[in-house]
């Protein structure tokens, strides 16, 4: 699938030299061209010059907080960002995701899992404007006609269910937080009503996760949100 001409560029922003070295080694075996940055400032500069396809960001940086780097980055860039941190509190994760991170991985981590996550978040990024049809595995969503099919068969969704699926599909591979979903589907005043979400999500799952398609299309990130990523 990787085209030989355009090598993928990854930017690692982490102050730990060992982690950087390790990530560089493991990402290079995955075929990435890896650039490193030790501080937040350096990282932001590198994000401008190197035009990375994906950024791996540590939250505990010496000069500024990782969340701050994320905010500044999101002012101008849509480059997928994976946050890699020792902080494992739920709140930290949600904050990072709400501030524009695409995924979150806590240290210690498995190299294989990192690679998989990077693949997932990279996919949805560039051509979201042009595509009017979304496809993952057996699931197909036609944004222009609001038609949803599984294995070519029509699935009937209510307006709310369709809205949920659309938000998840547009953020393919990315963890969409409860708050994000609620805001997109019900509006900002509903941000604290996460208990509704479960009910709708269950309905949606029942309709699109058919018996034949055993792989779970919609994954639950416990306490954080949901992620739509089919077998691609």
């Amino acid at each position: 699938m990787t085209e030989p001409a355009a090598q993928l560029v990854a930017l690692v922003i982490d102050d730990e030299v060992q982690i950087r070295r390790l990530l560089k080694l493991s990402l290079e075996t995955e075929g990435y061209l890896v650039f490193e940055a030790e501080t937040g400032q350096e990282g932001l500069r590198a994000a401008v010059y190197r035009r990375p396809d994906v950024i791996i960001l540590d939250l505990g940086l010496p000069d500024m907080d990782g969340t701050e780097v994320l905010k500044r980055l999101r002012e101008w860039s849509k480059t997928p960002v994976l946050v890699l941190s020792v902080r494992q509190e739920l709140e930290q994760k949600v904050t990072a995701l709400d501030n524009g991170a695409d995924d979150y991985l806590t240290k210690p981590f498995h190299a294989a899992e990192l690679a998989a996550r990077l693949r997932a978040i990279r996919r949805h990024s560039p051509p979201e404007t042009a595509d009017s049809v979304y496809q993952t595995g057996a699931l197909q969503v036609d944004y222009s006609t609001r038609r949803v099919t599984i294995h070519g068969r029509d699935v009937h969704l209510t307006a709310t269910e369709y809205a949920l699926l659309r938000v998840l599909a547009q953020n393919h591979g990315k963890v969409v937080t409860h708050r994000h979903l609620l805001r997109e589907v019900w509006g900002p005043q509903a941000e604290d009503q996460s208990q509704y979400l479960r009910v709708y999500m269950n309905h949606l799952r029942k309709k699109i996760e058919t018996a034949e398609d055993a792989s779970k299309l919609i994954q639950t990130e416990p306490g954080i949100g949901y992620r739509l990523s089919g077998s691609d």
Partner: protein
Amino acid sequence: MKEPSRPNPDALLAAIKQEDEKLRRGRLTIFLGMCAGVGKTYAMLKMAHQRKADGLDLVVAVVETHRRPETQALLEGLTAVPLRTVEYRGTTLQEMDLDAILQRRPALVLVDELAHTNAPGSRHPKRYQDVMELLETGIDVYSTLNIQHIESRVDLVRQIVGVTIRETVPDTILDQATDIQLVDLPPDALRERLAEGKVYLGAMVQTASANFFREENLTALRELALRVTAELVNQELREVMTTRRIEGAWKTNAKLMVAIGPSPYSAELIRWTRRTVSIMGAPWVAVYVESSAPLSEEETARLAKTLSLARQLGAQVVATSGDDLVKTLLRVAREERVTQLVVGKTLGLRWLEWFKGGSLVERLIRESGDLDVCVVQTGQSRETRTASKRLSLDLKPWSRDIILGGASIALVTVICWLLRDVTGYWAIALVYLFLIILLATRLRRRAIISIAAASALLWNFLFIPPAFTLRINQIHDLLMFVMYFIVALVIGNLTARLRLREWSERKREQRTAALYRLAQGVVESTTLEEGLRRAVQEIHNASGADCAVLLVGQDGRLSTTPHPAGTWTLTEKERGVAVYALEHREPAGRHTDTLPESDCLHLPLKTVNNKVGVIALHFPNNKTLLLDERELLETFADQVAVMVERYWLIQEAGRTQLAEESEKLYKTLFDCVSHEIKTPLAVIQAATGELGLVFDLVKETKGAQPFLKEIETASRRLGRIVDNLLSMTRIESGRYTLTPVWCDVDEIISSARQQVGDLLSRHQVRVLIPDDLPSVKVEWGFVEQSLANLAANAALYSEPGSEITISAQVDDSHLVLKVADQGPGLPQDGETRIFEKFYRGPHAPPGGVGLGLSIVRGLMTALGGTVSATNNPTRGATFILRIPVEMKRIPESL
């Protein structure tokens, strides 16, 4: 512009508030009669029996039957609270037991003779004050009262029967009564009852019949009683109209102001005004104008009494100062929007008034504009008139003035006599004048005037020819003599007045200086102890009193031990007075109306919205407290209260800041440690994983895979221990904030399983969650970690391949999570010990430090939940978490 007749919002609000107060307080019913023997007590008991039949919890606090058989019979069947026996100077007195009643808290209490004066040593000097306290705690009271005991009618009663009544109750208590029952009996009937011996027994009948119970007296008293009742009913009606906004109830915008002073007639004026306003239903103000002339001790005491009488009778008391009485009165009247001014008709010196531009009353009338001025005749009865002493500046004895004045006059006379041939007799007059000026700075006015007169006579007798006679021959000598006399008087007077003014200035300055020193001391002192010590010192300097300071402690109650800054200690009884002062936010103890028998004056230390303590002042040997002294002390107390509150706030701020600093330090340290340990672990784990991938590709290195697995297992274990140690530290330090979020239990369980996935990989994990489990609001991280630890524990203690069951349910307000394994079960007697830190069970596999379960307990404690463990009926153990949660059931069909 004329005011429209609509209710003034303030008045309406006040009416509503008063109405509310009445609702919250106990209800007072007064059985009012014209005199003894009309059957008030009888009527009260009758009614009490009715109420008792209704099932009301009522007790008799005190009833005076005067051994009348009918009344005594009515006491049968009513519960009585035993009277309290008081020993006083060898005799035993019986008084109502207020505390016993307050403790019993009945719905209704019968208290006879409202105007009774309590035995010395009781909490309140008067019984009506006891009744007020009962009402304040919400207990209803029935009481009886004779018309002659109402404060504002005392003068009228005296005019009728010629006896001054000493036992009185203020009119305000009538205002507070929710019900007035008039017990009326025609005079003839009463006299009949008296004759039959139903009122008094034995010989008393005759004397009573001849004196008090004369027919004309009774008729007058009866009329008075009927009138008072009518007024009260009228007033009630007006109150009803006010609250219901009935048009026409707003005809009077009247407000009265009565001018009072230290004169003994002021009390009469106050009573007159009170009677008038109660008929008009108008508010009233009592104003006292302080002039620069100081008052004698007696006058000060009388003024204080008069002012407190005015307060008791419901007046708003205004004290102001100014040397021109008329101007000041009119200024206050304008400020207070008064419509009528009440002044007494005083009998002054005619010529002096003419000299000052008319009498006070005349000037008032001339300058008052549209203000009505009521001039009231006072002092009809000579019996209240007592000589008032003006201007006793210092308390040095008169003898000193006489000796000093006489001696200096004699000395100067002798010297002048010796020099008379040299100087001539005219110069001698000047020498005398000089002496008068000198003495005027030393002696009081009356002495100076006597000396001036004496010197004039001496000069005439000894020096003006013909000597040794009082005759004056020469016309210029006569002129000289008259002039001398006048000049001597004026000089004496002026100097004395100057001194007075200087004296009062000095007094004022002393006060200001004392306050300034106190304020300065407060600012300069760096600790509360030092500040209080200074305050105690200043109070001692100003009043000579020793102080005990009691502050309110953390629990909001007054501390039992006095603050070490005090110089006095309190007995348990005095402490009770202090508590009273604090709770009622008003001074109590000596020199007050509450518990005046105490040793100390207790001033509450109160700020606008805080009660910080009490300062108790113990004065040396029966010192009388002057009005301005007491005011100064109260101001002191307020200052001290503000100071204490300020220190408290500073302390509070300091504590908060310290906590913040240490929180910050802790967080930095914690983050640093966790980062430093976890990063190398992460590197090891990631590198191992990577290495595994590489080794998999190369055939020659495949045999190395088991070693990699060992490294991975070890690093995971190390990681878990680090996590546990960090969690333990966090829980034990109490440095966590709970931010519960709405979540789904199945998500928590799956997240916990993920956390310890490697440990559970060789077990069969079953999860049992009912379909209708509601969403719960809970601290996600704590529950997840607890579950993960329990699951890890289950996996470690049971055979691989065996089953681990995780189940969830809710009961009323708790989330119940269970983790069951099929291991060896709990160790004997280990059911509680397993949750102890570093405890390891007998079947514990190697590795692990015994923190997992103690962390679970810590987390549960933090959430207000519990963890427990039991053995399963067949095999293994079950761990149960019970966590209080908020829950929300969402219908599946939305």
